[in-house]
């Protein structure tokens, strides 16, 4: 049984676009990345999955169950929303105790552990906290019951780099203990670091669903060349070349295809420098992203 199973999920907001025909599955123990620009439909997908809004068509299940008909399935889900809001006039500890009261286990020890890791002052009033510290409350709040599925929506927004690192270490250790992680983000770097598989969403549709290794893998190379004299533009006029930036002696482009073909072509010119790198996800993503729009 898949931990998350989303099938042909469509959500319309009146005339406005929500998400269209989204399908994906997340397996036990995976760290799954969900990537897309702001407004692509990431949060809509998550909110439908969690039962906050109803799908127009299709289905979204967690542990084989739908959150709206079986709300108890959320017992095993920890959720960190992209923006955190809490009740007025509560201290951090009050909120965490209230959160804990929804679960059937004693979370006291866990609260203290997590607060220590995330460097969170439990006695402070939530209203007085900065955005980043509120986010920390959200992180702790989402993990106190040791959920088997952790859903994170733009988790690092507002966290300083040190805290981001601690946060990812924390998520990685939860994953090692067996938790499945669904990580939604527009920051490709963090997804790249963490995730085994990734879905790219754009304008409400999934445009790519692939293993991270394949996405990054041998398909694409970032190639930079420097010629001894100005480069002849026609060299790059071949299949597999994209995102070409050519300026005088230097050129930079993405290449997808048989590496021998491009090497033969490049060998015809006198080069002073050549570098071939793995492209980062951002470049790949931009490739998919700009292809049809």
């Amino acid at each position, binding site marked *: 049984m898949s931990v998350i199973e989303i099938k042909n999920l469509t959500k319309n907001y009146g005339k406005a676009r929500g998400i269209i025909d989204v399908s994906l599955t997340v397996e036990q123990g995976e760290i799954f990345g969900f990537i897309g620009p702001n407004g692509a439909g990431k*949060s809509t997908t998550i*909110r439908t999955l*969690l*039962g*906050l*809004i*109803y799908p127009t068509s299709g289905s979204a299940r967690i542990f084989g169950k739908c959150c709206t008909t079986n*709300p*108890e*399935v*959320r*017992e095993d*889900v920890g*959720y960190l*929303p992209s*923006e*955190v*809001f*809490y*009740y*007025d006039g509560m201290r951090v500890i009050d909120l965490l105790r*209230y*959160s804990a*009261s*929804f*679960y059937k286990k004693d979370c006291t020890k866990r609260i203290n552990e997590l607060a220590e890791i995330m460097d969170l002052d439990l006695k402070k009033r939530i209203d007085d906290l900065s955005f980043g510290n509120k986010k920390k409350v959200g992180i702790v*709040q989402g993990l106190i019951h040791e959920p088997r599925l952790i859903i994170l929506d733009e988790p690092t927004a507002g966290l300083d780099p040190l805290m981001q690192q601690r946060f990812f270490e924390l998520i990685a250790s939860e994953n090692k203990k067996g938790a499945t992680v669904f990580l939604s983000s527009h920051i490709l770097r963090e997804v790249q670091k963490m995730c085994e598989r990734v879905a790219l969403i754009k304008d409400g549709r999934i445009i790519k669903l692939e293993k991270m290794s394949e996405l990054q893998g041998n398909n694409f190379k970032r190639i930079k060349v420097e010629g001894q004299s100005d480069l002849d533009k026609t060299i790059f006029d071949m299949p597999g070349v994209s995102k070409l930036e050519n300026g005088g002696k230097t050129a930079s482009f993405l290449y997808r295809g048989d590496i021998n073909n491009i090497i033969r072509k490049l060998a015809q010119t006198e080069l002073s420098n050549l570098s071939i790198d793995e492209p980062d996800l951002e470049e790949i993503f931009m490739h998919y992203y700009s292809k049809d729009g």
Partner: protein
Amino acid sequence: MNMVLRELKASSRALIIWSVSMFLCVLTGTIKFTAYTTATSTGPSINELLKTMPTSIKALFGFASFDMATMAGYLALLFIYVELVAAIHAALLGAGIIAKEESDKTTEYLMTKPVSRAAIVTSKLVAALLNVVVINVVTLVSFLVVIPLYSKGNDISGEVLMLTLSMFVVQLIFLSLGAVLAAWMRHPRTSGSVATGVLFTAYFVARITDMSDKLRFLNVISPFKYFDLGRMVAGNGLNTGIVLLSLALVAAFTALTYVFYQKRDLNI
């Protein structure tokens, strides 16, 4: 249970303020009773003055059918306003408690906990009900404490009890009205204003129908007219049929609150 406690805590400050206001409303209202009964050296008593006023004016202020010279009659008049205050409290509370998660943006927090929306609505309604009971008891106790200070003669505790009982039913109607509006409306934040709008309309209907018997059929849309205050101060108690019909209305609003709330796409 945890959610009920949370709601009670969240509403505690407002409840104290409403309770104190209710007590002051009863106190200051009752103090004025003396002005209605005693003829002053400068002129006739207000009761005599009222006799000279046209019925429509008296109806507008609610004086129409009560004998202001007796504490019971005066009470029936004062009670119109006390009931109005309690009804506003109930309507705002019912709308607010359901709309709160969405207007305070705590939806994503609460609705991702392992609880059903029905359980959430139940907790909220239980907490709201307790608030309404407190306001009702505060009103009853205030009257029982204040009236003997200004009323000579017969004990009217029985009448006061009947009036506050009828007020409880009216409170329940407006509480459930507020709740159902908040559960139904696309933008629940505005449900409080809509609920109070409905309430004031009902109130003015109640005043207008006092002017002419021909308008009495309109009373059906005004909960303020469901119970005849005059009948109660005459010691005739509550009309059981109307109590049951009112409670049926409350039950219908409450049931719809569950239905609408469960179906809605929550605003985040």
